[in-house]
């Protein structure tokens, strides 16, 4: 099987966020692979181990984000395409999806494409259905179980509300968005990390992939502004060192909230 996994670099959400000119100030931020994408990489590697083939990583982001692609290589992915193009980064989800799609088409004869359920930074959850439609493939989102049941067929569980799953069958080729918990993503081994450095990584621009609609002009939506949420209901912060704060909290729970 030829499996493509889309991997996105996102900020570590525990970083200190600052907004300068409507942009995130990246100087204080640590970056990592989107959590959901790790599960997608693991799912792809397990399929390859069982049924043979190759796992190809496709990612769009600044040069820095090659680190996340190498991380997927260290887990066991074979090679990758990195789209580094400010025009794509400045575009909306549909621009990014068409660039990813351009890369996937350039690989040719892909059996399966996997994404994460959502990117932790933009929380859009739109990329999987968009890519599928652009490639003319069927899709399924929020996949929590996955098995190859035939030469051209997968059996899936799609997560639904409150612990319910839908069981379904889908033909290959298709596009899936992978939900956390489907597996336990492996940690790269030391030999894996060494090998990852030498694996093939093609760096492309949108125009190399036949994508011309980029940036704000190529987007269908318009970014207006970014801001910290103002909560009408902010918690009463209990100050003091851990001992003092804990003691005050217990008193408040007993005497003020009367829940203990």
């Amino acid at each position: 099987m030829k499996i493509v996994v889309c991997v996105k670099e996102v900020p570590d959400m525990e970083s200190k966020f600052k907004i300068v000119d409507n942009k995130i100030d990246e100087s204080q931020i640590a970056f990592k692979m989107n959590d959901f994408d790790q599960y997608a990489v693991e799912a792809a590697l397990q399929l390859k181990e069982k049924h043979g083939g190759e796992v190809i990583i496709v990612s769009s982001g600044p040069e820095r984000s090659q680190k996340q692609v190498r991380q997927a290589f260290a887990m066991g992915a074979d090679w990758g395409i990195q789209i580094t193009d400010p025009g794509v980064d400045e575009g909306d989800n549909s621009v990014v999806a068409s660039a990813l799609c351009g890369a996937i088409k350039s690989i040719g004869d892909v059996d399966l494409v996997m994404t994460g359920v959502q990117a932790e930074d933009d929380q859009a959850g739109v990329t999987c259905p968009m890519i599928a439609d652009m490639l003319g493939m069927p899709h399924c989102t929020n996949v929590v179980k996955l098995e190859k049941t035939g030469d051209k067929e997968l059996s899936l569980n799609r997560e639904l509300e409150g612990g319910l799953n839908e069981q379904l069958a889908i033909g290959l080729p298709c596009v899936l968005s992978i939900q956390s918990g489907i597996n336990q993503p492996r940690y790269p081994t030391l030999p894996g990390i060494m090998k990852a450095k030498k694996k093939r990584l093609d760096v492309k621009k949108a125009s190399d992939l036949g994508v011309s609609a980029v940036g704000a002009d190529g987007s269908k939506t318009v970014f207006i502004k970014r801001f910290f949420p103002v909560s009408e209901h902010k918690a009463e912060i209990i100050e003091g060192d851990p001992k003092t704060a804990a003691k005050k909290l217990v008193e408040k729970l007993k005497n003020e909230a009367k829940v203990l």
Partner: protein
Amino acid sequence: MARILVIAEQRQGKLSESTLELCKAAKAIAEGLGAAPAAAAFYKDDSIANEVAKYIPEVISVVDAKLENYSSDGFAQAIKAVVDSQDVKGVLIAHSYDGIDLAAKVAMVLGAGIVSNCNKVAVNGGQLVFTRNTYNGKIQEERSVKTDKFVATFEKGAFDKEAPGGAGKVTAVSASIGDIRTKFKGFVETQAGSVDITQAKIIVSGGRGTKEKDKYNDVIVNLAKKLGGEYAASRPVVDAGWTDPARQVGQSGKTVTPALYIACGISGAIQHVAGMKGSQCIVAINKDPEAPIFNIATYGIVGDLFEVIPAMMEALG
């Protein structure tokens, strides 16, 4: 008049609460744009359409045996048929499991821009401005759509539920539903567990900040026992196998409303908050002062849970 069209959502024949919230949203948007609120219902018969008609003045119903269960192909074809035959300006979809699966596909089929996962919308000089959560709820952004039509998904709770009462007009639209490339096989329940945390008066809940299974047990389980309550967890804790899936709180877990919910090392992602925001008193213990959980908590302690929880145990005597 151009319509703002809600896509009705059902599971096993039951209309979702999110659909009622979208009816409220459609009315607000329609009023701001001088458009008309409407809904579309896709099902094996007219029952869902008739149910939605209690909440909105016009319902367009596409009836086909292939639409009994949701599928992106079936629903996208039905929506295309509705949009091709009626004047539709925008499509509103719940940011739910089916909604996430459907919305971006619909946007592609209609050639429309999509703003997903919104929690607010305003009309500003005839232009819709959507507000949405980003960065796990730490930062919000505003976005609008450039294309003639738009698709938007709204998170649960973004609007109040519309009250029933009306008797909207139901119009049938015929659509020939062709190939459905995902074959529905059935439903399975996956979280049936031995414990029912929804009955607990006190819940101590641990998140990824508890670091590892032994530490989760050490702090969260012990504090819960000391308080005579139940212990629970956010999704990453369950995903990692530190505790039982029956103890997961949130959109894909349990909804709980205890008198006291203590969230330890939980950031407060919307999908977690969806399952516990109805608690009477919420305590958040988190080392990040900007964690969104502090926006919904009653009391907060900014600090290391591995210091604060032992101190609480001591204070409890």
